[in-house]
């Protein structure tokens, strides 16, 4: 007989209780995988919106959210004249509501913005984009708003004519509405302003010089390369932290399940543990049995939870309404984090039961036969 056989028997003996412990870990794993994958996928999509045909972003210094950034229109004009700049495209981000759809992302862009010129036009054409009342919809937005070319759509207190429908690879853009920049500025009462300027350089080696030049000319603005922005943007960090925090909370519940399972297991095996001690098991050997049982539950829970999580992600991505909007990104780091958290949770949950088991006095446990 081996230690593993002893552990297997213990786990199998009260399989319902073991199953509950495994389920706790599994749900924690599944929740963490689903939440983090969706959050990281969303961040990835937002990053791709920003770096469409650009390498540097210019926005207002010290703002916590790009939606609150105000970049004067004159800055875009001046930036276009700087050496090494191939293009400078202002974008004004906003949120509007339509009947039954309280949140729709809007992008105020100029008619030659590469987001539109590079998109696949399903209806209409880039040439038709420009008049103040014309809006171009992403394919998914057109689907959920149930409109076609030429229809009128109510957005906020205004109404826009559908001037085109485009297909993009990005879920946010595909579910959003493109408005002419001037119309968007008027709609959001931000005349003459944009949220960012997406800058394309003729040579990326000139990025440092360009950033220094922006800092010199526009003290209230900051220029960051896309990579720098992605790493430092507080909203991304908050989202990631929230994802991990929610996942860890799910795991805490799982850990309580493991602790409860193991404690019950120890309570019902007091005499058995005393017999093990009588047979020569040391306190660390007894603790090892309890901890290994918990880790075995964690491994099983992890496998089950990851399978469940992947299944949920797959199912979400199959939902037509969410197509392209939820783009799960499962990174090795996230997987390692989930497995590590599961094992740590199980270990933490097993500590007190293991300690309790080592404190069982064999004579006391065996005194009353």
């Amino acid at each position: 007989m081996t230690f593993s056989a002893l552990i297997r028997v213990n786990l199998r003996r009260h399989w319902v209780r073991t199953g509950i412990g495994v389920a706790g870990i599994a749900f924690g794993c599944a929740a963490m995988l689903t939440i983090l994958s969706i959050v990281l996928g969303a961040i990835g999509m937002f990053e791709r919106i920003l770096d469409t045909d650009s390498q540097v972003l210019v926005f207002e210094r010290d703002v916590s959210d790009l939606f609150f950034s105000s970049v004067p229109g004159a800055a875009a004009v001046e930036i276009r004249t700087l050496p090494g700049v191939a293009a400078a495209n202002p974008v004004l981000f906003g949120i509007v509501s339509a009947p039954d759809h309280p949140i729709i992302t809007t992008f105020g862009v100029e008619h030659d913005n590469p987001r539109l010129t590079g998109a696949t036009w399903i209806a209409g054409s880039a040439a038709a984009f420009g008049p103040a009342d014309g809006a171009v919809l992403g394919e998914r937005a057109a689907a959920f708003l149930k409109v076609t070319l030429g229809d009128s759509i109510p957005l906020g207190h205004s109404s826009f004519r559908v001037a085109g429908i485009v297909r993009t690879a990005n879920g946010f853009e595909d579910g959003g509405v493109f408005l002419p920049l001037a119309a968007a500025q008027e709609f959001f009462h931000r005349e003459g302003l944009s949220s960012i300027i997406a800058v394309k350089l003729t040579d990326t080696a000139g990025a440092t010089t360009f950033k220094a030049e922006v800092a010199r000319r526009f003290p209230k603005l900051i220029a960051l390369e896309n990579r720098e922005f992605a790493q430092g943007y507080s909203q991304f960090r908050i989202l990631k932290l929230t994802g991990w925090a929610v996942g860890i909370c799910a795991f805490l519940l799982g850990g309580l399940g493991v602790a409860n399972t193991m404690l019950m297991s120890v309570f019902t095996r007091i005499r058995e543990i005393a017999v093990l001690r009588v047979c020569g098991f040391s306190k660390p050997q007894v603790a090892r049995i309890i901890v290994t049982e918990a880790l075995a539950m964690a491994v099983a829970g992890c496998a089950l939870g990851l399978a469940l999580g992947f299944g949920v992600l797959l199912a979400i991505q199959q939902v037509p309404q969410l197509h392209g909007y939820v783009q799960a990104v499962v990174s090795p780091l996230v997987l390692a984090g989930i497995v590590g958290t599961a094992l740590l949770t199980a270990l933490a949950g097993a500590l007190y039961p293991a300690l309790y088991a080592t404190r069982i006095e064999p004579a006391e446990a065996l005194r009353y036969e």
Partner: protein
Amino acid sequence: MNDRSALSSRGGTAPRSALSVPAVEVTGVWKAFDSGRISVLEGADVTVAPGEMVALWGPSGSGKSTLLHLVGGLDRADRGEIRVLGQPLASEADRVRLRRRHLGFVFQLHNLIPDLTVAENCAVPALAAGRPAAETRARIDELTEAVGIAHRRGHRVQDLSGGERQRVAICRALMNKPDVILADEPTGSLDEETANKVFELIRDLVRREGAALLVATHERRFAEACDRILRVAKGRVLPL
């Protein structure tokens, strides 16, 4: 021979009865429970020679089990000294090492682990001691043959009769070839016929293995089958 050399000689080819130190030496041991309100042992003295079979005879509640627990390092005496194979039971590590290598226990109730098979239950002490699997298997075969339950090796213990379970418990106690067997009313839960057979088995196997036996019993006939009887009463242990 010092304490350590007495211990290190076990497992060799020399008969264990040749050891110069007593197998068990209990000197002036006191033990009370319930914060001293219930005094069980009051200066108990017991010496068991290597290979000797000694019965602790007395009524229920006289302190026989308590004495066995103290000798087995399962509990600690309030006063006095206990040595097993010349070694005091000072630290937890000492007690674990003794239980693992030099002591075997048989209880009134078999105290087997449910859901494990006969062979697996027998193997528990070997697992604690980290004995090689092949050696363990051979020893299980030897012991289960000796007690007549070889055909039940693969059966779960809950499928066995009371007598069979106690035979498994005997095999488990002898698994690591201990120097001392501590048996606490080993026939107490069995019918008369089975009790006789089980006691004979214990006596014969212990004799064959060359181990010392300290057995607690309230049945005179089993006590008389041992080399010596010690009467346990009023906290004292006296020769009969």
